[in-house]
């Protein structure tokens, strides 16, 4: 009996050693920065899971940069290899903390691009902050994201600004009453709704109906939309996720809501038009970027992107990923020294960087100072530039 339990103990010990051994085949390099003349940049986005579609565009956006660089970057007269490491976070907070640790501690990246969602940025942020690794979140619009610490930046505008943009556009278009339907289970939608309502009512507009639904799984919005229609609004605001908008627009039209529909920046993706079909006409959205912009930076980005991905027009997911990566590259080139700290300091100093969405500078609070645009879909599901809104 004694023997067998010792055997078992040994067995257990071996099993543990194996588990640890399995996990222990990692890097042994010094923390942070450049090694063997190779610079590594981490990219965190959802490759699988419900939001995998966003991950696809983010990957595309960064791949354009990758192609531009061709694996090499010149910094201060010296040429370095540059490598992008894509990590799937499944749009989950838990996995985001895992991949942040992996990128920071094991891959020794100098900076991280992404994640795209506020919730993931909020979970990963403290880890990066503690380890001192700069992060440029792409699409994380929640105000709190950059408040985590001085290593956390973002490429997009924040909820209050986006809400204000939408409110301003609706108000200035002459619509005095608006109805809202939003996903009360989603941080993006609730945040944007609150910001919008505050700004719109501040301007003197009236929110005549506010209906909610819970979660991306429920695709039946008929009841809510019938109620919205019965309040006969002049305009409807849908601050929801891209996987939901197509059906919402379609069902809204079917429920008799013929008025203009305004959405948040998540509507900037071809799937919305594809799913909604002809119903997408007269749907406007606020966005960080217009593919019709005429600046050199924008034109060259759209050209390269379209060429690389079979005529696909870049959307703001892709564009923001591109911009976030460009911001990191700019910081690398302007850093006093090639360390994470150096990159962070350089990110703080970004001024008048030419990006596809226009000239961008970094504000004190690590949010970019940049304007937005209002876009509108035509009946074919192609979006066109309507107007620009400047910061402040």
């Amino acid at each position: 009996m004694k023997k067998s339990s010792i055997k078992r103990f040994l067995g257990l010990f071996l099993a543990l050693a194996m588990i640890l051994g399995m996990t222990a085949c990692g890097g042994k390099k010094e923390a942070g920065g450049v090694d063997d003349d190779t610079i590594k940049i981490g990219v965190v986005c959802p490759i699988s899971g419900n939001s995998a579609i966003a991950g696809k565009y983010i990957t595309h956006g960064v791949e354009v940069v990758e192609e531009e660089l061709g694996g090499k970057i010149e910094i201060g007269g010296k040429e370095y290899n540059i490598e992008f490491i894509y990590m799937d976070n499944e749009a989950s907070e838990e996995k985001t903390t895992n991949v942040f640790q992996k990128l920071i501690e094991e891959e020794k990246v100098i900076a991280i691009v992404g994640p795209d969602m506020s919730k993931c940025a909020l979970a990963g942020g403290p880890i990066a902050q503690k380890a001192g690794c700069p992060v440029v979140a792409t699409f994380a619009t929640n105000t709190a994201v950059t408040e985590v610490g001085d290593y956390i930046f973002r490429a997009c505008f924040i909820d209050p600004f986006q809400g204000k943009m939408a409110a301003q556009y609706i108000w200035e278009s002459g619509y005095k009453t608006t109805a809202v339907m939003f996903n009360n289970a989603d941080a993006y939608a609730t945040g944007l709704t609150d910001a919008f309502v505050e700004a719109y009512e501040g301007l003197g507009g009236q929110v005549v109906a506010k209906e909610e639904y819970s979660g991306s799984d429920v695709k039946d919005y008929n009841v809510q939309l019938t109620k919205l229609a019965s309040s006969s609004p002049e305009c409807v605001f849908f601050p929801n996720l891209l996987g939901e908008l197509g059906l919402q627009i379609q069902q809204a039209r079917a429920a008799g809501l013929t008025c203009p529909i305004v959405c948040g920046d998540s509507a900037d993706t071809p799937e919305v038009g594809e799913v909604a079909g002809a119903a997408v006409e007269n749907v406007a959205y606020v966005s960080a970027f217009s593919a019709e912009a005429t600046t050199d930076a924008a034109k060259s980005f759209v050209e390269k992107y379209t060429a690389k991905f079979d005529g696909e027009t870049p959307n703001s997911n892709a564009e923001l990923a591109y911009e976030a990566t460009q911001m990191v590259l700019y910081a690398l080139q302007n850093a006093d020294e090639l360390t994470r700290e150096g990159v962070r300091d350089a990110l703080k100093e970004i001024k008048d960087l030419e990006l596809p969405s226009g000239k961008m500078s970094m504000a004190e609070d690590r949010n970019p100072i940049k304007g937005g645009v209002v876009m509108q879909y035509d009946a074919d599901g192609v979006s066109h530039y309507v107007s620009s809104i400047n910061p402040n």
Partner: protein
Amino acid sequence: MKGKKWIKAVYPAAVVALIYLLVTALRGVGIMNGYYNQVLMFAGINIMMTASLNLVNGFTGQFCIGHAGFMSLGAYGAAVVTSMLFKNTDSVFVFLLGLVAGGFAAMIAGMLIGLPSLKLKGDYLAIVTLAFGEIVRALLRLVKPIGGARGMIGIPGYANLGWILFFMALTLFLLRNLIHSPFGRAFIAIRDNEVAADAMGINTTKYKMTSFCIAAFIAGVAGGLYAHVISFIQPDNFSFTKSADFLVYLYAGGSGSLTGSVVGATLLTILPEFLRFLADWRLAVYAVILVLVMLYRSEGLCGGLELPFMRIRRQELYEEPLFGKKTKGKGEQA
């Protein structure tokens, strides 16, 4: 005999301490890093969740599929204590108080849902627990002071691998003791034959409730630890998908075996991380591995097995064996 007993008493503590020291040492020399640390922390939390689910599903024979609901209540309960009530007190006691509060929050919810519904059987009970998980999630979204759907931000990162291993070991220790006590025997009796258990004077409702509440409490504590690892929680983090994860860990490890819960939760937490080199195909391959495991070891990886220190044999009750000559050393498969 004496020597062996002594070894046995310190077995679990020694193993856990060893893991901790090993990880710390490996981190110290740079072989292991924060990534492994992070994954092991989640593994520890998942072990607690799986072991507690095992108490309900594996040992008491009930069918709960909303375990993440208890976890979320624990996470929120603990986070409210540490980041709202005692926002400016940075102390271990606040952390522990938070965990206990989380545990009680989950346990009270367990009582509320268990009292009316534990008379339901099998899949009907399962549906109620699923509904319970969804209701908790839906209601947490609507409570604005704790952030609603936007979640709770800035929960202090009190939990580290040491704490998690400590609570994990404590959980396993307590559960092992419980299972080898009149309570645990009553649970197993209910699982094996509810009619007979009832006829033998076991108040089945009471014992089901006990099992349910203890499991909820542990899930609550695990949720509290989770909140303090991840520092940001939001209701959708605790969806049915998460409950299903724990079910998978439980049955892949082997239900009715605490060792199985440890092995299942650990391996299946590590596996998807280990498969990261597969990029796009990662989860598809993970699914295939899971199916193969179930096909080739369908009682679970450790089904019917229990490590020596995870069980208590009858003979151990005797310092000097009373029936020793007759019974000692015979068939001891438990």
